[in-house]
């Protein structure tokens, strides 16, 4: 009885299928002008990874500076630019597109039994907009950077800095359209292109999660766009809309900005939650516990997520009664996330669990997201927010949910679907090691920051009182370990492209439609249009199908 569910074809005879989406056409133009959602997903994967490491390098610089209480590694102005660019790159160029643009693009059509997304050209346009935005951010960095913080608070960003606010704003504006078009594409695809028999409640939870995130992308991002437009006008012409001297209100910018930026965090996390649903189900061999609850909770998070933005503004001078309302709504939005955690946990009950790398990352997600999410409640409670806001507690909170949560989910998904995307397995032992190293490094890096926060250390500080040094040193030490944990996958995944074991159609014996085709898939995904005649996560259906196949004389590849 083995400890793993991996079932690979006989390596001595197995080959990557000759005809697949990678081999279909060759040459740079076939990639740069592709309409194939899978190729676009790969393009995104490469570019996102690139920007992730830029953001990571910036993070490294931050942690190095914070080793000592004085602002001694770099000028304070430079430090301010470093943390601003770290935020901008990580949020807009990594987290927002990460799962949707890579795994979502690649697998959404396959999961619903379609040949492509509804609007392939718009999909490609999305990638180009993303690249333009990303390159513009790089240019901004090279030509002096921006130091307003990723939140562009007015009037600092409009009247009090001389750095590249406009170009960064433009870059974010353009990248925002990339996000809008991706979300739009997903919604149309899910509504209009499901295969026969694929009813809403037979959809994989990954699709539900992306549907909810897409609603947020489509409805929230335009408000950020207009906030940036007004910011640019205020900065260049001085229209006065945020300037108290002219009758404007700087808080208006805060409202417009957070109206997007709060749903943005759900845009970032929901697709990751979709990944976790798939992974936990596959590696427990069980349908996700409470499928309907998990599906509806994704939508609930999206809907409630629109009504809580002012919890980022509790001490900024909004009225006490507004604080009451937003705090209450924040409590409501926390509940669906809790529901999901418990549903995933109970998916394990009476399952048949194995601990391959995607599952390890999923477990890491569950623990760290629970901590991150609970600390969100600390902040959503108006009274305690007074003490904790604007300190390292906030920094720790969002890194727990974004890095401990979302990034782990992303890595889980990459490892889970790597065999499908490339036809190759990644090396299991070293990847499990990397997962554990990441988990340890993460906790060392970010847990001390909770304590720094309750002790009162403010965020965005280049220098700090000496008594905070020990915790900062811990945090930087952890960051080094974390860096190793993130570097390893890049190395071994690249290695696996040439030397990894041949994966075959369904190495995990998973139930999704994407696993019923070859690895890597054909450009048109399916030879025949699939007909969905079973529920999602139907492992009994899979077993019957396998038995049928065994009865026929079948050859793979």
């Amino acid at each position, binding site marked *: 009885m*083995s400890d793993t569910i991996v079932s690979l074809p006989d390596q001595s005879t197995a080959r990557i299928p000759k005809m697949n989406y990678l081999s279909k056409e060759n040459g740079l133009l076939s990639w740069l002008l592709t309409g194939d959602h899978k190729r676009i997903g790969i393009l995104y994967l490469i570019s996102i990874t690139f920007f992730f490491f830029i953001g990571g390098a910036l993070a490294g610089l931050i942690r190095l500076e914070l080793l000592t209480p004085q602002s001694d590694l770099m000028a*304070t*102005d430079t430090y*301010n630019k470093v943390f601003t660019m770290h935020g901008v790159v990580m949020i807009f160029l990594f987290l927002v597109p990460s799962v949707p643009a890579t795994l979502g693009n690649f697998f959404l059509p396959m999961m619903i039994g379609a040949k492509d997304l509804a609007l392939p050209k718009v999909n490609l346009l999305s990638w180009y907009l993303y690249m333009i935005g990303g390159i513009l951010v790089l240019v901004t960095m090279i030509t002096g950077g921006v130091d*307003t913080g990723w*939140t562009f*608070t007015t*009037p*600092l960003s409009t009247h*009090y800095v001389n750095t590249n606010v406009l170009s960064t704003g433009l870059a974010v504006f353009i990248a925002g359209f990339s996000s809008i078009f991706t979300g739009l594409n997903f919604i149309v695809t899910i509504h209009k292109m499901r295969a026969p028999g694929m009813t809403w409640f037979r959809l994989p939870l990954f699709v539900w999660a992306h549907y909810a995130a897409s609603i947020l992308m489509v409805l929230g991002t335009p408000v950020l766009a207009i906030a940036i437009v007004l910011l640019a006008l205020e900065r260049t012409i001085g229209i006065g809309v945020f300037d*108290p*001297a002219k009758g404007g*209100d*700087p808080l208006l910018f805060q409202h417009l900005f957070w109206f997007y930026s709060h749903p943005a965090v759900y845009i970032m996390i929901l697709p990751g939650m979709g990944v976790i649903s798939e992974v936990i189900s596959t590696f*427990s*061999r*069980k*349908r996700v*516990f*409470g499928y309907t*609850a998990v599906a509806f909770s994704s939508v609930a998070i999206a809907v409630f997520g629109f009504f809580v933005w002012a919890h980022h503004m509790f*001490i900024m001078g909004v009225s*006490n009664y507004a604080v009451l309302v937003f*705090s209450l709504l924040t*409590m409501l939005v926390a*509940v669906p996330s*809790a*529901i999901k955690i418990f*549903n995933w946990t*109970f998916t*394990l009950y*009476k399952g*048949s*669990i194995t*601990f391959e790398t995607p599952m390890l990352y999923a*477990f890491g997600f*569950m*623990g760290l997201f*629970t901590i991150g999410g*609970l600390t969100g*409640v*600390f902040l959503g*409670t*108006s*009274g*305690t*927010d*007074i*003490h904790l*806001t*604007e*300190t390292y507690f906030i920094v720790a909170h969002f890194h727990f949910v974004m890095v401990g949560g979302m990034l782990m989910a992303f890595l889980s998904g990459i490892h889970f679907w790597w065999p499908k995307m490339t036809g190759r397995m990644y090396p299991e032992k070293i990847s499990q090691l990397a997962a554990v190293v990441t988990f340890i490094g993460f906790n060392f890096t970010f847990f001390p920051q909770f304590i720094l926060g*309750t*002790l*009162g250390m*403010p965020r*965005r*500080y280049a220098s700090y*009182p000496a008594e905070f040094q*020990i915790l900062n040193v811990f945090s930087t030490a952890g960051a080094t370990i974390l860096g190793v944990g993130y570097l390893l996958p890049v190395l071994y995944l690249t290695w696996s492209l040439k030397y990894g074991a041949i994966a075959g159609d369904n190495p995990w014996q998973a139930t999704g439609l994407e696993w019923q085709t070859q690895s890597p898939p054909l450009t048109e995904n399916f030879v025949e249009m699939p007909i969905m005649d079973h529920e999602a996560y139907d492992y009994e259906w899979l077993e019957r199908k396998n038995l049928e196949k065994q009865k026929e004389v079948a050859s793979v590849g």
Partner: protein
Amino acid sequence: MDHISPAIWQFLVKWMTNFALFPPEASTIAPQMDALLFFMVLVSLIGLTIVVLLITAFSILYSKRRHPVAVQIEGSTLLEATWTIIPLGLFLVMFVWGALIYFRVFTPPANAMNIYVVGKQWMWKAEHPGGQHEINALHVPAGRAVQLTMISQDVFHSFSIPAFRVKREAIPGRYTTVWFQATTPGTYHLFCTQYCGTAHSAMVGDIVVLTPEDYRKWLAESTSGASLAQNGERLFASLSCAACHNTRPDARGPSLANVYGAKLALTSGQSVTVDDAYLRAAILNPSEHITQGYAPIMPTYQGQISEEGIIALIEYIKNLNSDYRIQQTTNTTDMLPESADKTAPAAQKPAVQAPAAQGTVKQ
């Protein structure tokens, strides 16, 4: 203990005694906030433990080796209800408890003394009513409620005293307030916690809590001579406020004696209570704040007066408790150099009547 090097031992002792998870509790609200924080930590720990235990237990009991065949379970409405209602209930408890604390922190008691704070890149200026000015420091007495009325001269800043568990933004364009009552004399951190540009991390200082006697001593030593109200009086005259806001029966503006805290009917029909925010708005945007019965002729002083100037004027107005006092202002400041050119009608001294007769404000 022989095996542990003395250096490490020293480090450990120092670490253990200095290390705390929370800053010192130096205000009356701090223990209340800490109580809620502890509750939340406890609930989080229990929640986390439950989740981790369940995951660990299930992983062991139902690993493939031990449990090779999974049992398909659709769900359980009872369980869903349980883990929806219990977390929601706990979160609502936190919400109510936290809201109570929030309201407490931002509703100053009636007997609070008031200190003005102006934030600007990159320093905090504290203005005590008695005329004491501090930069990046704030001396307060223990055992007294202290309200801070804050504003920023430029960008958003945030006045944070971790040891008191209070924090509030200082924003440009309007006042924000927060209050606390310090309990233990000592020196505590003051931080600016809203990113405000280059020297954001240098915008730090000390909150010095003194015993009441030491505080009195400090007040006496630190005064610059003129109180805020006295400075306000000079400004009142030099800006010709008294040209309209005087004691004459045909004055073009309402008398400001006792106006602070009073209810005022505006020409728009609105009724307002005169507080700091109202006075500031009335000085900078007078046309929207005309008292009923008066013509909208007050000019705006926007651009002509600094935030400190407005604060001084407000302090002066706060202490104006009689028309006689206003008359005194005119009398006193008439002779000041800056009043030389201002041949305001009020300079002609009308008959000064006894204070009591003119003590009412036109409503």
